């Protein structure tokens, strides 16, 4: 049973083709690394999967419960951690115990204070709780490791492992190969809006960060 199925998906911005004829499917429990240079269409593809934009052509079927961690952290600065989580929990179709999640990301003691008083790391941890709560079937993470502090990185690692263990599908976009390799079971490589490679991680990538660009890329 596919969590996400794209058939000949294209996305145009005016006459500019951002994505062209993508066909692929993700299964439950997959962890996909979205690779590609800047401007290859990674963010556009993530937005498509999130349902923030709709394809110009082709069909895209997406799971019911999707969660997104974009460049912005997606929580409100004026509200407290508890209010933030409670608000997003109220929008979910399942019941979520907010206190459990506050405990999990280690913010319980300060949960009543407004977010603007938090440190950067604390806000990032709250954003992680917001993303992972409610057991989403499809997790979309846009460059999740950039600018995370140590604690938040460790937390993200464990949350990712947990999510994968309960057969959630995870999509990470990144352009740092070693990081992607550490988690991903499959690679989706985009170049200029075209799908160049989709499959298991090739071993050659391990030591050589430009291997995939050289092998599957058309422009050098």
């Amino acid at each position: 049973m596919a969590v996400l199925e794209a058939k000949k998906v294209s996305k145009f911005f005016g006459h500019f083709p951002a994505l062209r004829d993508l066909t692929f499917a993700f299964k439950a429990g997959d962890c996909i690394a979205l690779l590609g240079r800047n401007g290859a269409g990674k963010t556009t593809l993530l937005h498509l999967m999130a349902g923030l934009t709709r394809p110009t052509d082709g069909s895209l079927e997406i799971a019911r419960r999707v969660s997104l961690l974009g460049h912005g952290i997606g929580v409100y600065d004026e509200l407290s951690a508890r209010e933030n989580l409670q608000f997003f929990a109220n929008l979910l179709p399942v019941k979520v115990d907010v206190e459990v999640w506050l405990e999990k990301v280690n913010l319980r003691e300060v949960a009543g204070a407004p977010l603007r008083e938090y440190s950067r790391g604390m806000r990032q941890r709250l954003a992680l709780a917001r993303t992972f709560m409610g057991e989403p079937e499809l997790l979309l993470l846009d460059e999740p490791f950039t600018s995370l502090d140590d604690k938040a990185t460790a937390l993200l690692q464990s949350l990712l492992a947990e999510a994968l263990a309960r057969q959630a599908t995870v999509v990470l976009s990144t352009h740092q190969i070693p990081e992607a390799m550490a988690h991903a079971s499959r690679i989706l490589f985009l170049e200029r809006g075209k799908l160049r490679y989709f499959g298991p991680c090739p071993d050659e990538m391990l030591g050589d960060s430009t291997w995939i660009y050289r092998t599957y890329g058309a422009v050098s």
Partner: protein
Amino acid sequence: MLRMSWTIFLKDVRMEFRGKEALNASLAFALVVLILFSFAFDPTSEQIREITGGLLWILFAFSGVLLVNRSFVREQSNDCLDVLLVSKVPASSLLLGKTMANLVFILLVEAVCLPVFSVLYNISMFQLPLWLLGVCLLASWAIAILGTAFAAMTVNLRLRELMLPVMLYPMIIPALAAAMYLTNNIAAGKVPVGDDLIWVRLLVGFNVIFTTLSLGLIDTILVD
């Protein structure tokens, strides 16, 4: 769907009352303009009765835009709008929740301004409290629904503070005109009857048409 609107309404109200930035700014603005009016004409003369409605509704439309403008900016700072849309919140629920929140803010400003206006200019606005409430509700809803929908349109513009009023005011003229006319009557203690009721009908019709249009088009506006 309505439950989601309610959740968003509560969140917006809570956020605004936490900082009160927009509310305070627009209240202060409204009060300053109320005082400025006294220089525009003789504040003790009878002629002010004839322009009461006009003054008040221009004031409410201006301070209303200050409030409405913040509505989608709130969602923008940390990309919260994206998160809401990903959580399968229908765009129309989002609009409805935000409109209700804006309606509450506008009504609050009116609740402060109307007594102050009555006292300062010696006009009793509250002879027909139910009529006044009705007109305020209807006309404020008109400002709120169109204002919120247009705030969604302008949220990505660099000049959004400027563009929103430029787009909004020409379109709410019918609603404002009706509200002005009815408010004049109310201030004079006259219950609108007969031909005057056409303005009530205009307000209701305006609201029905533009609420339907806004709820129908908001998905197109927000989702690519």
